[in-house]
Structure formats: structure tokens, C-alpha cells
């Protein structure tokens, strides 16, 4: 359970957020989900219940939805396993329908083994195997395969290199002989390597033109961390850095039969397959293969990660979060959840984003299938104008799923659909073979593959609800958006917006123009802009009342905010959103807080320190007394950075013309890592000769609050206001 132990924020926003989280979770846990009261679909109610199977003799009628016939048993295709003398593990699935052979070879060691700064090396190794062997040139290899209509391709995955080949049975010896040459005697000719580099660079450029690919690449970086091999990505620069020696070295080190499996599927018997393989791949020598060290998953801080893409008419939006490894007990629930939220007909996003609002053509939802750790990604490509509305709908649907759990009928349909998908794979035995190979490579018991349908059927509504609550709660999710630069301002309500380039690198900030102002000069100008030291000194108390609205997890709540302050640092504040109420008292030396009108509790030492600082009427003036640095001028703002006495990093943005404060960013530490909170101050008005913002916006990835403030100056206040009643 996530709770914030420190309530250091001016209006205790964190505490409110965590309280809401507590209450929803507590509710979810303590309330057994009620059976769905939603009316049955007309198709269901108008037609006969599809419970008992129809006997084939039942008369079908156009006016009645049919019952299913008696079901045919699904059985997992039979397969054989053998190991060759060089350690190559072999699967054979016989299928004599067609005179066709398909071959999948999967070798441990993939792009995760790219040397740092040379991303693309392993992928180029896979391609270069085809570019020359001791026996044949690239042109001869291509001509040989094309000439008989055979196909053979190699692709680099994250942790494996995979070959897929296919030919008519009569050409299988040629196919296997070619495969053997590529594996055993590649020559990596320099001239072909130079050409390949050019093509690879073009591939990098092409990927950059596809917005959803950019968004997914950025989401991988955000969720896996910059150092994860799952997140690394080739660039023109890294491709240019690769040398031909990197390729031969990868080939020698990693591409060994004892770290590989091969599946032969089709019109061949086990003994034919064995003799074909011994003959063709017997010369492939075994050797020790290194173990890959993998850094831990390191999710980047909560924020909106944005790639501005000129010319975009749609925004590609991903809500992403960390997910467990494939062998985790709740992996299946998480995977089902991903599809339930976003994938295909009938998913939550399809029903809302597409069929209710017409925001999108094709929403999506999936969970990656890595052996170490994973990523959930749900989202859609929506027209630019509804970027924010679509995110609101997405967050609302996710929150609702974690709060109420799935509609049982809808989940049941989803499960049947997923089971159907799994069983339809049996139409293609080579897909079945690749599932087995994947399990072998990742030390997953075959029973997991063979009984995938039972595993899916075993996921309950509460499993999906718990998975949503655990992995897609508001602290864990990260927003990634690729879209027109114009949509940036629509994203601010979802938290600090961090710009990335189309190379998936942090966008370089505009350079700071130097300014010839000290911190004291800036504060003096600010003080002048507020109304001058005399007017400030004359303001002894300030009463703030505000109409407040808070957007959180796609829902908007309204309420009121009342704050009374007395110089220098006494405060009473009450934040009332009806469903949650929070109060705090600061009497100048001590601080107390209370939730939901409950008993006031004294704040702990650290918390009190921040609350006392935040209670000041004019905290910005104190920049004079603390260590602060003038960064310079950027985007029309004069920027000052400081560390507050409480240890909190703060950045102040003063309007370079008026010297009023435009916004302040502060980094709060949370159990989920640092989180940046942005406060924006807009529409200043004079209160007894001193300027205050009549609109205050507080934005972070958890919620966005807008306050419309009304002020009164120098209203008489009693000291008792600033301490909780002792009654």
C-alpha cells in the first residue's frame, strides 16, 4: 500500500491523493464486487441463453440467436524433442498436409548484447551472415534461395537471434545447407558491411517517421530505464560506430548450437529431420557462451513524456507502466488486463474512445512478454484536438477498472476470445513450434504453453482488478505522447511535461541567456512588482477563499478552499472536496493536520519544517536569505534555482518583463521516486495594494488542481484560529 508519510505540500495535496487512493483500495478490498446489475444486452435477452449446447437436430431460426453446437476437443499438437551431438536442441512437428518445410532457429544472445554506443551491431550481424560465406558471395546466396522459391531471414530480438526459413520439401536440403554456411563460415566482407550500414541508417530514419513507433520507443525508455537493453535503440550515430570486428566477435562468442534450438515443421518425419540436421548442421561447433548481466528495471519519474512532431494531425498516446516477469504468478492476470483495457473490439477503450466518442480508429493494449521484467502499454492515436479529452477518458477507465473491477460478462467474453486466439494458433504448427522454443529458451515449463487456455480461464475478475490496482495505479503510470507541438499545453494538466527528440533523447533546453541580475536584484524587482515593501509590510493578514476543481484519474471534483494567514508564518487552511476534507494549522512554531474532519495530529519534525516555511505570506522574498542561483533568461522568464531549508529543490520562473512570479517547480521525494510539481500563478489582482494571483494551478502526474482565488487583506484574526480546537 502506498501512503505518503510526509505532508509537505501547501494544501497537503499529497495526503489527499494518498487518502483517495487508500479509500478506493480499502473499498475495493472490503467490498466484494457486486454482481453486475447492468442490463443484459438485447442480443442476450432477446435470444435464448447460450448455456446448453444445441443438438445438431435443433432447428435454426433467423429470429433466435443460436446456441453453440457440441464443442470439438482441442488438443495440443504432438511434437518430438531431440538433442544433436553438438548440443543443438531440436523440436519436430510433423504435418503432412502440404509438401512444405518451415525451419525456426533461435540462438541465445540478441540486441541486449550490443556494445554500449554501438547499438545495431547484433542486428547487423544477423543481416551480414547473408552477405558472404567461405563458399558463396552475397549475390550467390540470394540467387540460390530465390531461385528455388525458398525464404530465409534472420532477425535480432532482444535476447536472441531468430532465423525463419521455408521451402518446398524438395528444396529443404538447399535451405539447410545455406543455413549451415551462414552459421559456420560467414566472412563479413567489408564492402557489404559498408552498404549495410547505409541501409541500416535509412531504417533508423524511417522508424523515426512513424509516430507510434517513436511513442513506444520512448515508453520503453521511461518504463525500463535508460540503461536497460530493452530500452536501448539504434541511432545513426551508434550504427556508424559499429565496426566489422564487432560482428565477427558477436558471432564467435554467442552463436553456438548449445545455446540454440531449432524447430522443423512440416512434411518430414523425426528420423528424416534428424539425419538432415546432423548432415547440415553437424559442423556447427559448440563452445561456452557468456551469461548476460541485465540491469534492474528503473522506471523514470512520474511526468508526461512528450515528443513534439511537426505535421502531426493525431496524437499517439500511451499510458505505460511496469509489469512483472512472465513467470510471476499474476502475469496472466496482468496480460489479460492489458487486452481488456485496450485491445480490439469490446475493450474498454474501444467501447469508449472509439464507439462512444469517435476519438480514435484503433485503440490498443498489450503487455510485453519478457523473461525478466515487462511493460504494460495501453493507448490510442487520436486527433490532436481531443488529446487531453482522450487521456481523461483513458485514466477514468483505468481507475474504474481498479476501483470496481471488470464487468464479469465482458471479462468472460475476453477470456473466451483469448482462449480462441490461442487455439486458432493450432492452425499453424510453426507458430506452435516457436512457442515451444520460446519456453525452452526462457526456462518456462512446456505445461505453461500447453495449458495456456486453462491459465487464461483461471483469471478471475478480482485478479484483474488487483492487477490494475497494483500496476496501473496513478503513481505507477507514465504518460507518453507524440504529437503536434500545439498539443503540449493540453498535457500540462497531467503533470510536468518533459520534451524528448525524435531520437528519443531528452530535448536540449533552450540555452539560458545570461542576465546581469543577482538574486537580490531579482527579489527586489519582484517585491516592487508585488506593490513595494511598504504595502507588503502593511499586509498583516490574508484571507483566501477559492472555488476549486481537481482533475484526478479522469474525474473532476469541485469544492472549496479556505486559507487564513497571519504574518509572518501562521496559517489555517481547509481544503474541502466533499469526498475528502483536509485541514492544517500552523501557529508559527508547531503544525497539525487532520483528515476528513478527524482528530488533529501533530506533524512530525520534517513535515513541520516544510509547513512552517509554506505558511509564510511571502515565501519568495526569503530567496534573499538562502543559497540561490540565477540560471539566466529562457523563454521570456528569469529563472532562479534554490534548495529550500527543508531540502526541497525549487525552481522559480519570474516574468522577465513584469517580474511577477509566473510559476514554480518543486521536486518532492515520494516512495515512488522524485515527482515534480508545477504551480502556475495567473491573472494577478491587487489586494490592499499587493498583487496576488487570482488563478492558481497545481499540476503533477497524479492530479491537477485549479483554484479561483478571492482575497481579503487585513481581516482581524484570533490566534486560536491557528491551532486545532482542544475540545
Amino acid at each position, binding site marked *: 500500500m502506498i501512503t505518503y508519510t510526509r505532508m509537505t505540500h501547501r494544501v497537503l495535496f499529497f495526503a489527499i491523493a494518498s487518502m483517495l487512493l487508500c479509500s478506493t483500495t480499502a473499498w475495493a478490498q472490503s467490498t466484494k464486487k457486486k454482481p453486475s446489475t447492468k442490463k443484459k444486452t438485447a442480443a442476450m435477452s432477446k435470444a435464448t441463453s447460450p448455456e446448453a449446447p444445441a443438438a445438431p437436430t435443433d432447428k435454426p431460426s433467423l429470429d433466435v440467436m*443460436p446456441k453453440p453446437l457440441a464443442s470439438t476437443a482441442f488438443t495440443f499438437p504432438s511434437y518430438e524433442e531431440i538433442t544433436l551431438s553438438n548440443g543443438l536442441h531440436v523440436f519436430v512437428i510433423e504435418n*503432412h498436409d*502440404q509438401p512444405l518445410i518451415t525451419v525456426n532457429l533461435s540462438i541465445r544472445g540478441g540486441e541486449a548484447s550490443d556494445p554500449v554506443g554501438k547499438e545495431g551491431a547484433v542486428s547487423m550481424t544477423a543481416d551480414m551472415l547473408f552477405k558472404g560465406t567461405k563458399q558463396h558471395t552475397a549475390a550467390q546466396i540470394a540467387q540460390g534461395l530465390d531461385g528455388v522459391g525458398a525464404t530465409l531471414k534472420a532477425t535480432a530480438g532482444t535476447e536472441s537471434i531468430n532465423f525463419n526459413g521455408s521451402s518446398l520439401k524438395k528444396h529443404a536440403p538447399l535451405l539447410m545447407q545455406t543455413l549451415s554456411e551462414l552459421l559456420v563460415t560467414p566472412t563479413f566482407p567489408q564492402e557489404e558491411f559498408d552498404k549495410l550500414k547505409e541501409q541500416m541508417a535509412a531504417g533508423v530514419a524511417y522508424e523515426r517517421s512513424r509516430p507510434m513507433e517513436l511513442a513506444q520507443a520512448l515508453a520503453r525508455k521511461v518504463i525500463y530505464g535508460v540503461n536497460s537493453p530493452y530500452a536501448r535503440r539504434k541511432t545513426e550515430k551508434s550504427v556508424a560506430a559499429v565496426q566489422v570486428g564487432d560482428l565477427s566477435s558477436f558471432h564467435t562468442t554467442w552463436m553456438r548450437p548449445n545455446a540454440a534450438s531449432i524447430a522443423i515443421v512440416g512434411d518430414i518425419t523425426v528420423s528424416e529431420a534428424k539425419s538432415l540436421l546432423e548432415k547440415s548442421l553437424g559442423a556447427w561447433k559448440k563452445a561456452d557462451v557468456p551469461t548476460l548481466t541485465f540491469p534492474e528495471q528503473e522506471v523514470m519519474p512520474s511526468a508526461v513524456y512528450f515528443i513534439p512532431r511537426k505535421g502531426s494531425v493525431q496524437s499517439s498516446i500511451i499510458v505505460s507502466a511496469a509489469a512483472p516477469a512472465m513467470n510471476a504468478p499474476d502475469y496472466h492476470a496482468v496480460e489479460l488486463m492489458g487486452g481488456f483495457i485496450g485491445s480490439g473490439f469490446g475493450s474498454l477503450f474501444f467501447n469508449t474512445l472509439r464507439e462512444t466518442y469517435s476519438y480514435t480508429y484503433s485503440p490498443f493494449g498489450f503487455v510485453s512478454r519478457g523473461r525478466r521484467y515487462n511493460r504494460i502499454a495501453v493507448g490510442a492515436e487520436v486527433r490532436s484536438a481531443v488529446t487531453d479529452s482522450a487521456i481523461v477518458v483513458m485514466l477514468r477507465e483505468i481507475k474504474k477498472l481498479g476501483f470496481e473491477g471488470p464487468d464479469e460478462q465482458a471479462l468472460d467474453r475476453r477470456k473466451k476470445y483469448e482462449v480462441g486466439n490461442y487455439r*486458432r494458433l493450432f492452425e499453424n504448427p510453426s507458430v506452435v513450434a516457436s512457442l515451444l522454443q520460446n519456453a525452452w529458451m526462457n526456462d518456462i515449463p512446456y505445461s505453461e504453453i500447453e495449458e495456456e487456455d486453462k491459465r487464461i480461464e483461471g483469471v478471475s475478475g478480482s485478479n484483474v482488478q488487483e492487477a490494475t490496482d497494483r500496476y496501473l495505479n496513478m503513481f505507477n503510470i507514465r504518460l507518453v505522447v507524440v504529437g503536434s507541438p500545439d498539443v503540449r499545453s493540453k498535457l500540462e494538466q497531467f503533470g510536468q511535461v518533459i520534451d524528448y527528440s525524435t531520437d528519443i533523447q531528452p530535448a536540449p533546453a533552450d540555452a539560458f541567456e545570461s542576465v546581469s541580475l543577482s538574486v537580490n536584484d531579482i527579489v527586489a524587482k519582484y517585491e516592487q512588482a508585488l506593490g513595494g515593501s511598504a504595502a507588503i509590510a502593511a499586509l498583516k493578514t490574508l484571507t483566501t477563499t477559492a472555488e476549486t476543481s481537481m482533475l484526478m484519474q479522469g474525474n473532476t471534483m469541485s469544492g472549496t478552499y479556505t486559507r487564513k494567514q497571519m504574518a509572518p508564518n501562521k496559517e489555517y487552511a481547509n481544503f474541502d472536496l466533499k469526498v475528502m476534507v483536509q485541514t492544517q494549522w500552523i501557529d508559527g512554531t508547531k503544525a497539525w493536520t487532520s483528515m476528513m474532519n478527524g482528530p488533529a495530529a501533530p506533524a512530525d519534525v520534517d513535515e513541520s519544517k516544510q509547513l512552517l516555511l509554506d505558511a509564510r505570506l511571502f515565501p519568495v522574498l526569503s530567496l534573499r536569505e538562502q543559497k540561490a542561483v540565477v540560471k539566466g533568461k529562457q523563454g521570456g522568464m528569469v529563472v532562479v534555482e534554490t534548495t529550500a531549508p527543508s531540502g526541497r529543490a525549487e525552481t522559480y520562473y519570474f516574468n522577465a518583463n513584469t517580474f511577477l512570479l509566473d510559476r514554480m517547480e518543486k521536486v518532492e521525494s515520494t516512495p515512488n521516486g522524485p515527482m515534480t510539481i508545477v504551480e502556475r500563478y495567473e491573472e494577478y489582482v491587487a489586494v490592499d495594494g499587493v498583487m496576488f494571483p487570482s488563478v492558481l494551478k497545481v499540476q503533477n502526474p497524479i492530479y491537477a488542481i485549479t483554484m479561483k482565488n478571492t482575497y481579503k487583506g487585513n481581516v482581524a484574526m484570533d490566534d486560536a484560529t491557528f491551532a486545532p480546537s482542544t475540545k
Partner: protein
Amino acid sequence: MKRQHLGLRIVMFAITLVIGGMQSQAQYKPVQFKEYDLANGMHVILHEDHSAPVVATVVQYKVGSRDEDPARTGFAHFFEHLMFESTDKIDRGTIDKLVNGAGGELNAFTSQDQTIYHFVVPSNEVRLALWIEAQRMRKLHIDKIGVETQRGVVKEERKNRYDNAPYGGMLDKLMAGTFRGTPYSWSTIGSAQHIDSAAISEFKAFYDKFYQPNNAILVVAGDFDESVVRETIDAYFGAYTKVIEPSRPVFAGLQPMNGETKETINDPRAQLPAVFIGMRGVGMKDPDSYAADLLAKIMSNGESSRLYKALVDSAQISVNADLSVIGREYGGLVLLIGIAAPGKDITPVERALLAQVAKVAEGGVTDEELTKAKNQTETEFVQSRMGAYQIALSLSNAYRYFGSTNEINEELAKYLKVTKADIQRVAKRLFQTNDRVVVTYIPVKG
């Protein structure tokens, strides 16, 4: 879409090949099917195959964008979306739920010539698939809410496929240029304005005109019992009545191209310059279509193909060079694609593509090239028919376009009969002309 081979799952004839028997000529058992017409004119094709417990259904309506009123383009595709709305017995938004809930999958697509709906379901749910198809064939509800929703969805589809994608809309520009004056000149997705300004009554009239049993072909393929399926089809579709054949725009009015038309587009979404060249091709029923397909393979299938060797491997001016022949019922398109290598100019790519097609028209192809293309065709013929859905789709197209479902079994022989002289004749026919549309995309930095 490239011309699809109609070949089916092929079962080897009596002989067992010994591995290494490179010279043996495989023989293929014909695909078995039964076909008949209901009294209302709906054509039914049944292909029974019990190798996997799955049934696919395909309903092909003989309506595509070429059947549209030029002032109402996009109707055929828009209808594909409406067909997932409600019917007399099926509530809005439940077709997908019924099918997914039965463990099945569903989709649909529209081209210039046809609209295809398909389901793949566990074999015991074959009746559900047929029932939904029967319900929406004549009992679809065409109302404001469905039309409004799908208007929005189709607009997003248009953006996704055209407006937000690099080189988006390229194919439409080429079709417009090569087929000016005919109904192939507008895109299947059509005009948003046309769809927006159409009244509900117009959608209803379109439905009543084209969504009729005698304008449909139903194929059921996979693991089913013939008597159960026949009885079910009779019960669900039999009561519908035959209507008069829909009148279609006459396929005429093709305008002369008068040489080369060039357009250059600055595309902020593209990263590399690209050139797309469209020329008139051959229709799918044209006897030259077999030679044209083989020619396309010789030009650009694999790394031993002419375009790859010349533009990508040797001159290194291009990262992708391709020639496709796209067949439609009443004509076709030759599509040449060249994407420049990074830092390379697009003009030499365009020149090299045209030089290569001129060269093959002038000099023909070699025996080795022809054999290779035939071998590739033979392999594809066997490979491309994995699964009940592919088989069902191929059967419906064979009947629809060739008037003979058995084309599926006769097609490979037609490819194998093509000679070098045929290829050169077709190359001359296609390429010895100055009539072409050239669209060049130049990336602009955002």
C-alpha cells in the same frame, strides 16, 4: 494489394519425396469444394476440412467504391463500419461481443471492387457466425447514432492511414492519375464531406440496393458437418427474396493520360525522399496478368531481383526499390517505388527505376529468371493457404472474378505455362509508354 494467388491448401499426391530429390515435380490434389445457389440467388461455397477445430465464414458483397455515386464517395467503406452496428435481434455494439465471447475473431475490409466480412470461430459456433451474417444482410438498423459514431471513427481512420503517415495517400494519387474518368479514380475511404452531407435515407437506399442475397457470396470453410451447415444456411438466408440486380455505373470514360504527370509533395512526416510511379497495368481477369505477376517477381522479389541488385546493392542510391502489379476487376496499376538512401538525391532513383523497366521491355528476361519466378510462385501457392479464412477468401474471389471457383486449382498451371516471350510482350505493353504519374515526396524538417 498485390494480386493474390488463388491457390489453396495443397495436399501432395501419392508420391513421397526423398529428401534431396531436387528434380521431382510436386503434384497437388485439387481443393475440394461444393457450391450451389439458394433460390434467392445467393451463391454458397462449402469447403470441409477437419484438420483444425475452426470454421471461417466469408461473405463477399459485390459492391466496392467503384459502385459509388461520384458525389457520394466513401459509401461502400462507410457501410463496412455500419454493418457492425445493430440489427432486429442484435443490439448496437454487440456483434463483436458475441463473436469474441464465442472465442472467435471478426473483421471486414473494402476495396474498389468488393466488401468482405469474415469470422473465424471455434467449429461449434458456426451457427452464430452465419446467424450474424444473415441478420445484418437484411435486418440492419441504419440510424442516427450509428451513422454519427461511424462518421467520427472513419475520420480517424483516414487520418491514421493517410494524413498522419509518411507518404500518406500516395496510392490514391496514382490511382486518380491512371484511372481518371472512371470510378477507380477516387479512393475507397472517400470524401469526409460526402459522408457528412449524406442523409440517413441515402445510406438506407445504398443498403437496399447492394446488401441483397443475389449480390452476395457466402463461403464456409473448415471443420463443420455439411448437412448441419446447409440446413442452417437455408433457415437463416432462405427467406430473403431475390431483388433486381443492382444497376452499376458503366465502367467507361477512361481519359487518355497524355504523357507524364509530376507532383512533388513536401512531407514533414517523411524522413527519406521517395518516388512513386504509377502506370496502367493489367486487370485481374486479363490473360496477361499471369505474365505480369511473374515479371513483377523478376523485377523486385528478393535480393537477387533486378531492382534490388541495380538500385540498392550496386548503385546504392536507394534503400528500397519495388515493382508491384495491382489488379482490379476492370484494370490494373503498375506501382514503382523507390526510397532514396540517406543523403542521396531522389532524381537518380526515379531515372534508374524507369531505366530498369525500359531495359526489361527491350531485352526480355533470362531462363534462369523465369524459372526462379515460377519456383517462387509455386512455393507461395503452397504457403499462402494456411488456415480456413485464407481458403474461404480465395474461394469467394475465384467465383466472383473468374466465374469459376475451380480457378483456384487451375491457377498454378497458368503461371507455369508463361514463356519468356510472354514476359517480354507484357513488359513492352506495360512499360513502352510515356504515360505515367510520378509523385515525389521530399521530407521537410519540422
